[in-house]
């Protein structure tokens, strides 16, 4: 089969590149060959993916994967996304994204990054070889059926959503991209080159942003499709993607300290390794069967190989770190804890603490079974409780860090600059306390406002100062600030977005829900709204039975919306699937689920959620993504004050 053959070709190319690139120190032409081989590997994998896409669109049901993931009735978008709807195909997508990252990376024109390419290639090449081999050997997406069925079974109806088209590729782009900073870190260790952090700036920000956006999209998908009324449930699969993001966020912050002050070198190598390892670990968790049970894991060959890969990755990262420890000496020392770098370090510790508790909680069912022979699990109450104080510390530290200079800050100046935000935060928190009588909500509002206001005020202040100096308008100055120092002001925009999201999270403290059974024509009251159940429509398109309820929502006498939740039964799947109806406003979401119907009458069970402030989670995420994008798109003006390159080079070549 050509598709599978191409995968083996890709393995060959990647293996060649991995061997040729390190040898290029003596024979430079080998580097050219290695680069071309990495590109060729990517083309071969892309060819394999295109063949699978072709088979999906051509409805070639002789392939087991095509039969399982598409059907004649499937719409083009869901035929396209069918590529990653199953294990074999999603591994192929993983390989494709990895190979494309590697191919773009080896062709980099950045003079800062180029010295790291020869030794980064073996790392990336080994990853390509490993993942493609897993796919081709254990999970062949091109496996054939003995008898060709007339029609495919199709994708699970739960996956028929726009989220399915965007979310998995974005999440994968985030997870896999974290392998690039890791590969460059390994290369820096091997070749004793100091300046890898600055070179890899964008290659860190891109996956970090993609992963963050992927997490939010996943949350919005769960919220609008799965019908449990929430966007985050501390599910092990969600945690698996959150862990590398936490490590990557720590890395994004601490890499600024190294870039600016030449400190935290060991720490950064460690974080790059941790983020990449957790990224692979996340894939491993969701793909190995380890989460459903230890026994399923033991039976899955993919799981065991993943385990080996993770072991090699961790040992490689840590032993390189130990080997080059003497060379990772900081250029400089901390002058004071009251400094940007000091606060970045606090930020890092908190992120790392978050990684540990989430990891511990996620793996507890496995470790407890192994140690005590008794499976113990921790649920959302644990994670919420352990995460809230850590998040609060992070927001406050971010606010203080924004107004603290490098090297040594004066506590007096910091307090002065935080006075405005603190007053705003205290006023809003006070109002929240009066209105809601909830101390926890008031606390969340305080920390979120402190950070949001600090980010806004600092940006406006800098823009005004610049406007006064150059005579341009404040708005033009904000754009100029972003262009001049995208890392700082893009970062402030991200912080503002996060603060807005946190306000949205606070809304979940005030969620209410109810369940009612009404007949058509009847009505019920909930959360200050009146729901009038107009009618139940039942109809049967070819593949399913649809129950569609028409419900008018009234408030204060006037109709404000008509909601149409559905409950569909898919015949191929013998599975009900809910289509939730949501009315979203900045104040709150009304979230209506058609939970069930009686067989004997049109009496219908509805579940209604009143979810305050959910929209602000999405608005905040959009702001944060815009901030992240501007930090990536705009090139920073490079500036260093710590030490001269010559002394740093000396430290490395000693």
């Amino acid at each position, binding site marked *: 089969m050509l598709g599978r053959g191409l995968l083996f070709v890709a393995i060959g190319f990647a293996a060649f590149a991995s061997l040729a690139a390190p040898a290029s120190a003596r024979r430079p032409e080998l580097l050219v060959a290695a680069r071309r081989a990495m590109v060729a590997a990517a083309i071969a994998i892309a060819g394999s993916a295109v063949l699978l896409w072709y088979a999906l669109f051509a409805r070639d049901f002789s392939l087991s994967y095509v039969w399982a993931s598409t059907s004649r009735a499937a719409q083009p978008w869901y035929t396209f996304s069918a590529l990653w*709807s*199953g*294990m074999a195909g999603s591994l192929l997508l993983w390989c494709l994204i990895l190979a494309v990252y590697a191919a773009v990376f080896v062709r980099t024109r950045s003079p800062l990054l180029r010295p790291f390419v020869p030794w980064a290639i073996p790392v990336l090449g080994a990853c390509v070889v490993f993942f493609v081999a897993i796919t081709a050997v254990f999970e062949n997406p091109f496996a054939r059926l003995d008898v060709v069925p007339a029609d495919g*079974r199709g*994708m*699970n109806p*739960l*996956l028929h959503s726009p989220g399915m088209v965007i979310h998995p590729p974005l999440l994968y782009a985030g997870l896999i991209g974290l392998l690039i900073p890791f590969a460059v870190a390994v290369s820096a260790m091997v070749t004793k080159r100091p300046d890898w952090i600055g070179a890899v700036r964008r290659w860190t920000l891109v996956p970090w942003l993609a992963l963050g956006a992927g997490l939010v999209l996943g949350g919005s998908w769960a919220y609008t499709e*799965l*019908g*449990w*009324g929430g966007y985050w449930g501390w599910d092990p*699969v969600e945690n698996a993607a959150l862990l590398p993001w936490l490590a990557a966020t720590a890395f994004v912050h601490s890499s600024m300290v190294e870039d600016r002050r030449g400190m935290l070198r060991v720490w950064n190598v460690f974080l790059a390794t941790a983020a990449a390892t957790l990224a692979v670990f996340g894939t491993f968790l*969701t793909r190995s069967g380890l989460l*459903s049970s230890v026994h399923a894991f033991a039976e899955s060959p993919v799981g065991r190989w993943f385990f080996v890969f993770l072991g090699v990755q961790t040992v490689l990262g840590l032993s390189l770190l*130990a080997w080059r*420890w*003497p060379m990772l*000496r900081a250029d400089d*020392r901390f002058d004071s804890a009251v400094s940007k770098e000091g606060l970045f370090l606090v930020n890092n*510790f908190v992120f790392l*603490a978050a990684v*540990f*508790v989430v990891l*511990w*909680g996620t793996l507890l*069912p496995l470790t407890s*079974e192994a140690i005590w022979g*008794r*499976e*113990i*699990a*921790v*649920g959302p*109450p*644990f*994670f919420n*409780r*352990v995460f809230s*104080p*850590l998040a609060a510390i992070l927001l406050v530290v971010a606010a203080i860090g924004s107004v603290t200079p490098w090297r040594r800050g004066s506590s007096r100046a910091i307090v002065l600059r935080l006075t405005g935000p603190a007053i705003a935060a205290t006023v809003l928190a006070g109002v929240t306390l009066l209105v809601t009588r909830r101390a926890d909500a008031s606390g969340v509002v305080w920390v979120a406002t402190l950070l949001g206001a600090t980010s806004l005020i600092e940006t406006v202040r800098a823009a005004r100062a610049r406007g006064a100096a150059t005579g341009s308008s404040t708005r033009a100055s904000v754009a100029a600030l972003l262009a001049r120092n995208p890392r700082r002001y893009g970062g402030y925009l991200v912080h503002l977005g996060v603060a807005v999201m946190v306000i949205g999270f606070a809304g979940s403290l005030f969620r209410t829900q109810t*369940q*009612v*059974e009404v007949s058509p024509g009847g009505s019920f009251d909930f959360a200050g709204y009146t729901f009038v159940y107009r009618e139940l429509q039942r109809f049967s398109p070819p593949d399913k039975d649809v129950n569609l309820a028409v419900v008018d929502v009234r408030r204060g006498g006037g109709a404000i919306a008509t909601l149409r939740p559905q409950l569909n039964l898919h015949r*191929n*799947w*013998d*599975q*009900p*699937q*809910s289509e939730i109806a949501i009315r979203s406003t900045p104040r709150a979401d009304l979230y209506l689920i058609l*939970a*069930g119907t*009686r*067989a004997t009458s049109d009496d219908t*069970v509805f*579940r209604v959620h009143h979810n305050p402030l959910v929209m602000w989670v999405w608005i905040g995420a959009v702001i944060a993504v815009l901030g992240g994008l501007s930090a990536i798109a705009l090139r920073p003006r490079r500036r260093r004050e710590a030490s001269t390159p010559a002394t740093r080079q000396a*430290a490395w070549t000693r």
Partner: protein
Amino acid sequence: MQTESPDTTTPAPPRRGKWLAGGGLLAAGVIGLAAWAAATPGAVSYFATPSEVAVQGDAAMGRTLRVGGRVAKLDRDGTVVRFTVTDGSNDLDVHYAGEVPDTLRERTDVIAEGTLAADGTLHATRVLAKCSSKFVPADEMDEHFGAG
């Protein structure tokens, strides 16, 4: 491990001591935080099969349990879902009035989380249909796990 360069004036031991103390304090804080969070009511649950619940009897009453097994006899009528979880040798009746996952069907694997009532029924507060990440239909589940 760390080689002290000549220009470093601070002697090593006090700095290392400070780092160790700080690290220890931090680790203690994190562990304390985790322990405090784990003490939240309902945060920790014990996994059990229906047979284990049967053996424990009254001892399991009132405790937060996660019972895993295969769904038999699912009744979705009205606002309440009742089903039986079986592990082949013992059954446990589950009573549930919350969000029902779409993937919950007969012959699928399920984890029901809740407390055991005096009549021996599990009053579930959360129901997770297993294999939701794999999205495999019921007949194929049988291939994986052997028909009930």
